């Protein structure tokens, strides 16, 4: 129970983790966050080692093994054209992890400089950027991603761009807010007083202090991006068949739910576990990096 409480941030602030201990150590002291981290590392390892660990070629069809229930030969069963579900699920981890990480990197690359500029420059620049951010935020995240992916054309790359762009305003807002708060701190005033140019104050003094908040938000955003990529693939806007992806596997599985339920159970369960792991680590990081947050 204490483990869950720790990870969920409902336990009282742990006295055993002093503010001076290393953030990673503080994170690992929270069992659920540590478990999430172990799961993520396992997923990454599986994705990287997919050619070695998957029992079959994920694209190899077999007309003699169509929609076979899980067995010793096929642990997760086979799909509608006799492909091994376990192998496809393992290879599918590549698309999901890649989409999760790359789309958040896109959001960070666009969002952080713009947010920093808005927060640091202030005035008209800030007003303009803030209004633009409001405009993008007014379009529901997934609907905007669907629209972007539709106009860009269906592919995994375009799905990542669509998700990354749609998630950017959150990072602009966060960076702007943090910058505004840090800008008023004394050490920043001091850095300005000794004649540092504004760009150096922003990059060398303000930005490093925004990083912890970005790490937390970034981790939680990966969770959201993994679900978004699965959603786009489910709608046919992500990874294109026959390449394996969890979302597109679920799309096909939906049609065979009455006679081959294993086709739907496994890809969804893997999405759930991966997303849960990122959420656990994100929540744990928030508690570890921000001692004020309870």
């Amino acid at each position, binding site marked *: 129970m204490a483990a869950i409480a720790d990870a969920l941030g*409902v336990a009282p602030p742990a006295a055993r983790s002093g503010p001076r201990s290393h953030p990673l150590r503080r994170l690992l002291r929270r069992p659920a966050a540590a478990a999430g981290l172990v799961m993520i590392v396992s997923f990454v390892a599986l994705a990287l080692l997919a050619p070695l660990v998957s029992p079959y070629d994920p694209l190899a069809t077999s007309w003699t093994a169509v929609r076979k229930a899980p067995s010793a030969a096929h642990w997760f069963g086979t799909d509608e054209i006799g492909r091994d579900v376990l192998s496809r699920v393992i290879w599918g981890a590549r698309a999901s992890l890649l989409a999760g990480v790359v789309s958040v990197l896109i959001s960070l690359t666009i969002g952080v400089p713009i947010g920093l500029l808005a927060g640091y420059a202030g005035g008209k620049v800030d007003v303009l950027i803030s209004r633009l951010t409001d*405009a993008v935020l007014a379009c529901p995240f997934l609907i905007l991603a669907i629209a972007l992916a*539709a*106009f860009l054309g269906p592919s995994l790359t375009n799905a990542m761009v669509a998700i990354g762009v749609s998630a950017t305003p959150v990072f602009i807002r966060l960076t702007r807010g943090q910058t505004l708060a840090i800008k008023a701190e004394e050490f920043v005033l001091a850095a300005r007083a000794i004649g540092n140019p504004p760009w150096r104050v922003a990059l060398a003094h303000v930005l490093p202090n925004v990083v912890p908040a970005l790490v937390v938000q970034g981790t939680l955003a990966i969770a959201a991006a993994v679900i978004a990529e699965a959603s786009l693939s489910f709608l046919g806007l992500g990874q294109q068949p026959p390449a394996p992806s969890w979302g597109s596997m679920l799309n096909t599985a939906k049609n065979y739910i009455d006679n081959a339920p294993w086709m739907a159970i496994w890809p969804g369960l893997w999405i*759930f576990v991966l997303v*849960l792991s990122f959420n656990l680590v994100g929540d744990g990081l928030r508690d570890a990096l921000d001692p004020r947050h309870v």
Partner: protein
Amino acid sequence: MFAYVVRRVAQIVPTLVFVSMLIFGLQQLLPGDPAVVLAGEERDPNVVAYLHKKLHLDEPLPARYLYWIDGVAHGDLGESLRLQKPVLSLILEKLPVTLELAFLAMLIALAIGIPAGIVSAVRRDTAWDYAANVVALWGLSTPNFWLGIMLILLFSVTLGWLPASGFVSPLENLKANLAALVMPAFVLGNAIAAVLMRHTRSAMLQVLSSDYVRTARAKGLPERGVILKHALRNALIPVITLGALELGTLLSGAVLTEQVFTIPGFGKLIVDAVFNRDYAVVQGVVLFTATAYITLNLIADIAYVIVNPQIRFH
């Protein structure tokens, strides 16, 4: 108060202008000549020529935007090439279905999220609190289309209790309508219940430690009354406002939920439009959703100020 409302309304004007520019700009992402792409598979030269003229493709971009926004301001969101119908009438036709689904989903989310939030705040650090938090984490981590498929597997395929798909109008047969919507509404409400639970929990924790609650307790009021009458009333204000902003989640979620359960609503409209490369419909749906979101946001803000006049001075 009046001045606040005027200022707040004036603030949304630039946002709406930027939203319209953004959505107009989507068209520019299409590779090549938009008229050729929009004309569909056949690429009928007559259709291409017609679209060229209709979209003013021979004129510069800013002029094209002005033509487009002028149409939008007059309720013309373009025309669906596939269905040969105005986009606005398609949206208005499909909207009631999604609104009913969203309403039921919100009811389910409130029924789960708020009691769970209260219990987990009042019984802080007990098994109840952990259980509620685990449920919230589950709600936030489950892809709703997968949850939908799993519910179909359980309640339709295995138990045979509920229909797996389809939609019946409530005016035709209310019972069949609710039977068709209960699973999708639960799927959609699930994630929002998790968000509401977290908001309720933190708002309740804050209120429970305030002076007036301590006073109420010191007066000897029964704990039940203190929590439900005194604490909950104040804690719910931010929760309801934040809940209103979950509209975006509801609409995003409806896209997938309607796809899984084959419900002919707003979400199915955009997905079908995407598959049929009916770009005007895609643009129209995004514009409509964004405008609805901005309007609701405005109403929530104003309602918040009416309930809590202190806000105005900040």
